[in-house]
């Protein structure tokens, strides 16, 4: 009798329930959490579900002997500041861990300064040290394009790039690298360093949030801190978002977080400024007054907050 071309599944495993498989890994929980806790980001969430599906199938195929190789999992997250790249990378680490593609599930977040040294012979040990810390988990390189400085041909960044490329290729079992940054600059970076492009399996683009999404994010952030807007405060914050977006250094959800910090401070000061007792309601409510005092509403604002 001829050997079957593909190995047969283990006894009792002629048919596989992918949904059960997914449930067993508890990845579905992370995906649902992602849906619940992150506002908007529909295309990102879809892509992550697709990647998770691919990995679940890959897991099953490996178990059945259809494939043996570790798939390439390095990714690039592109988008403007504050669009949730770091936050999603943390969840991605959790997903990869639950699916068994990384052994620990931690995320080490670095920028150029953590990888590149100041003098000859400094870069390699620095980069290797970071790689060691990330092994078993995910290495998140924020604004990765700063590694590459073509204007200076002796730039030490090149050394870090070469070590990274080597590890991304040879130690796929040991760590997953996620590059993050602005889409256009990242594109230029990958074009100048084609080695990365071929080693990155998944590109995910993070769109800017709409005003309504930023409002929802703001309300969610406040709620987690046991605050809320009153009607006037909410209306004022909607105006704030619209105005803030047009000003320099707008950073999507991060700008919202910073704005809320300021507003909480103004609220506290408002209570101190008025004599008398405060109620529980006073302590938890952000009003129009707290919002509208922001410099963002001042036409000739130079320093937004």
């Amino acid at each position, binding site marked *: 009798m001829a050997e079957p071309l593909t190995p047969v599944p283990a006894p009792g495993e002629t048919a596989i329930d992918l949904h059960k498989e997914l449930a067993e890994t508890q990845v579905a929980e992370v995906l649902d959490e992602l849906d619940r806790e992150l506002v908007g980001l529909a295309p990102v969430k879809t892509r992550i579900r697709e990647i998770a599906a691919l990995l679940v199938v890959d897991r099953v195929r490996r178990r059945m002997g259809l494939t043996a190789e570790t798939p390439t999992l390095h990714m690039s997250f592109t988008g403007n500041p504050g669009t949730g790249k770091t936050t999603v990378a943390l969840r991605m680490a959790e997903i990869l861990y639950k699916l068994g593609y990384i052994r*620990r599930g*931690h995320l080490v977040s670095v920028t150029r300064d953590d990888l590149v040294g100041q003098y000859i012979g400094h870069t390699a040990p620095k980069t290797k040290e970071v*790689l*060691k*810390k990330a*092994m*078993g988990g995910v290495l998140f390189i924020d604004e990765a394009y700063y590694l590459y400085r073509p204007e200076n041909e002796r730039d030490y960044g090149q050394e870090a790039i070469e070590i990274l490329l080597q590890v991304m290729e040879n130690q796929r*079992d*040991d760590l997953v690298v996620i590059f993050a940054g602005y889409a256009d600059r990242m594109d230029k970076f990958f074009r100048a360093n084609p080695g990365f492009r071929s080693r990155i399996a998944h590109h995910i683009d993070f769109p800017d949030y709409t005003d309504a999404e930023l409002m929802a994010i703001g309300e969610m952030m406040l709620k987690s801190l046991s605050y809320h807007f009153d009607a006037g405060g909410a209306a004022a914050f909607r105006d704030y978002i619209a105005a803030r977006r047009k000003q320099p250094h707008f950073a999507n959800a991060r700008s919202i977080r910073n704005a809320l910090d300021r507003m909480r401070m103004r609220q506290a000061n408002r209570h101190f400024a008025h004599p008398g007792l405060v109620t529980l309601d006073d302590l938890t409510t952000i009003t129009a007054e707290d919002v509208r005092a922001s410099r963002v509403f001042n036409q000739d604002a130079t320093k937004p907050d």
Partner: protein
Amino acid sequence: MRVTQGCFSFLPDLTDADIRTQVQYCIDKGWAVNIEFTDDPHPRNTYWEMWSLPAFDVKDAAPIMLELDACRKVHGGRKYIRLSGFDSTHGWESVRISFLVGRPQEEPGFILTRNEGGGQAIQYTLQARPLPGASA
């Protein structure tokens, strides 16, 4: 002469899979794992040479195993190599585990010298025999 010292020393030599498991155990306990080597396996020799830096802050055994491989490329089969787990927590601040992960192909063992002192006194000294190929 097969030198025994540290943990597991009366077991057969650990396989790489065994070593990896022990290293992960140390890491999970929060200990910093060090790689050391020497050509003087005297039990009272505390001055082993370090290979690379102590690995603080790693979460996984992989980087230790990579360094161990690198160390073996240079010293494997020629020197004694050991791993140790250092616990830096207050009150411990010392090595909690230490075990051999490499030994020379040929282990010449120790030599016992007898020194006759004043009167009838005899002093015994144990010294590691030089390893084959050792320069000193």
